[in-house]
């Protein structure tokens, strides 16, 4: 009997603890629009503007009860395309690819101005320009996503073919394989892999894709239904996000502090490295003017994707994005 009472008390305690620990996003206020926002990656300091915006109340001021969702990027795009969700953070190449497959998504705010992909090699590899990759082993997560698109765009720009180098799909283990010398060159995010490798003491050569070609980069998407039926919600979401980005750029220390409430275990990570990751990502932001998406970048992106065979058909780019809400 005692054991039964103990077990019952234990279960009630666990249940009560779970309920009290629920994020506020799961119990939205009736006055606010509840938005579940797929971020496309795990909790990370690169999302500092969003965390800061939550802490400063910018989203609540805009009538939005924001909840973060760290599912796969493509799942977020599919859910927005199916109008199951209203918004998602995505890498630029996803929009033309998805629209070519019939997903009615629209890019409504540029977050990054520069495409965040870089070619990274240890200095002794002597990879100073993209053509130096010829004949080398180049590791990337896989033949999909922003890393692959960035690499292929750069290769196309300098006249390299896939047969000119040895592509290796290594998952998201680029730092480890370069450190272990099991590859010669890696493809990664400017704000992530180079910062981590430098913190480990390696001298690196880093080639930015954005130095060679302008490509549409990370931003906020919605769908055609939300755009048509609730443009006010889109405007409020874009405005709150831009306000958060601007405030974070102007107050990086405060932005970093905000991350601790959203990223489990950040207090045990190397603070200098994490701050550097955040600062480096901020250098990529679209700041002049905030949120503006360059038509030339869209055109370049479509050309690259068609050339790679990742789009079945050409799309009308004017339907794929708008600068209306960021002005």
């Amino acid at each position, binding site marked *: 009997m005692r054991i039964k009472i103990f077990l019952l008390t234990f279960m009630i305690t666990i249940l009560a603890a779970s309920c009290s620990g629920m994020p506020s996003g799961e119990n939205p206020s009736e006055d606010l629009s509840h938005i579940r926002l797929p971020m496309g990656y795990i909790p990370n300091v690169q999302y500092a503007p969003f965390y800061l915006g939550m802490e400063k109340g910018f989203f609540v001021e805009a009538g939005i009860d924001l909840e973060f969702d760290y599912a*796969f990027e*493509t799942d977020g*795009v*599919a859910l927005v*395309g*199916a109008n199951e969700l209203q918004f998602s953070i995505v890498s630029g190449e996803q929009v033309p*690819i*998805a629209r070519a*497959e*019939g*997903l009615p998504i629209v890019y409504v705010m540029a977050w990054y101005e520069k495409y965040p992909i870089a070619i990274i090699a240890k200095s002794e590899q002597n990879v100073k320009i993209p053509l130096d990759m010829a004949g080398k082993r180049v*590791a990337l*997560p*896989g*033949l*999909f*996503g922003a890393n692959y698109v960035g690499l292929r765009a750069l290769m196309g720009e300098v006249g390299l073919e896939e047969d000119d180098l040895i*592509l*290796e*799909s*290594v*998952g*998201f*283990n680029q730092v*480890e*394989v370069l450190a*272990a010398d*099991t590859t010669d060159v890696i493809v990664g995010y400017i704000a992530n892999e180079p910062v981590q490798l430098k913190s480990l003491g390696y001298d690196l050569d880093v080639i930015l894709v954005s130095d060679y070609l302008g490509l549409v980069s990370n931003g906020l998407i919605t769908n055609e239904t939300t755009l048509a039926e609730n443009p006010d919600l889109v405007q409020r979401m874009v405005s709150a996000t831009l306000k958060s980005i601007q405030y974070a750029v102007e107050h990086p220390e405060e932005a970093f502090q905000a991350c601790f409430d959203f990223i489990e275990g950040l207090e045990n990570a190397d603070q200098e490295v994490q701050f550097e990751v955040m600062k480096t990502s901020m250098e990529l932001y679209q700041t002049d003017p905030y949120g503006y998406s360059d038509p030339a970048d869209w055109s370049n992106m479509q050309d690259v994707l068609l050339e790679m065979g*990742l789009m079945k058909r050409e799309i009308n780019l004017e339907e794929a994005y708008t600068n209306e809400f960021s002005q």
Partner: protein
Amino acid sequence: MKDLAGTLGKLGFLLLSLLVGLLLWQGFTTFSQIPSFIFPSPEEVWIRLVIVLKDGSLLKHTLITLQEVLLGLALGLTAATVTGYLLTKSRVVERLLSPYIVASQSIPIVAIAPLLVIWLGPGILSKILTSALIVFFPVLVNTIVGLRSVPVELYDLMKSLQASSWQRIVKLEIPASLPVFLGGLRIGATLAVIGAVVGEFVGADKGLGFLVNVGRGLYDTALVFVAVFTLVFLALGLYSAVVFLENHLLSWQKRNDD
């Protein structure tokens, strides 16, 4: 004649079940009007299947995965059988290895797979090892159970007949433990497919796991379905092969039962 009628009856039920399943699926996608990038209809999956069959890409990726699965299965099977035999025969080995073997089962294979890519490189070896690791435990357990189920009296009989160690293994232990061992092999054969695909998910540029990744990356859900169904057929094929092997190798047991 009776057997033939029974087999035809079973086949009829199977076809009926498949047909009902397809009709329900088609009905669901038609009436729910769910977008094809979320849930494609059987017709869309069929069209995609025909395309990848014609361009040869499905066969290419299937053969890669099959190669990884068979090599992984062979490696896992060999390691598990040898280890299982040693564990049954030596108390010292059992005490030394058991904690590691049991602990290893609590590690999810998806957590290990990225490390294997780092240690062994992005080639086929990391996928073979992922597959072998997932096969190892069920085969090991069944090997041990099978060997321990051999009646002691039969060992005594072999001893009285002055059988050599080799004769004891071949004439007694293998036949006696085979039914349980093959039960483990049934599970291992299907798990080997999962292992290889987990390896391909982590980092690969070929194989059915890679094809699933490509489908997801391009919002081509019909392609994801084609790859998944191919994996199901692969697993069913391997399972059926083990059942066939079982029927062949254990025919003496059935005769005895009769």
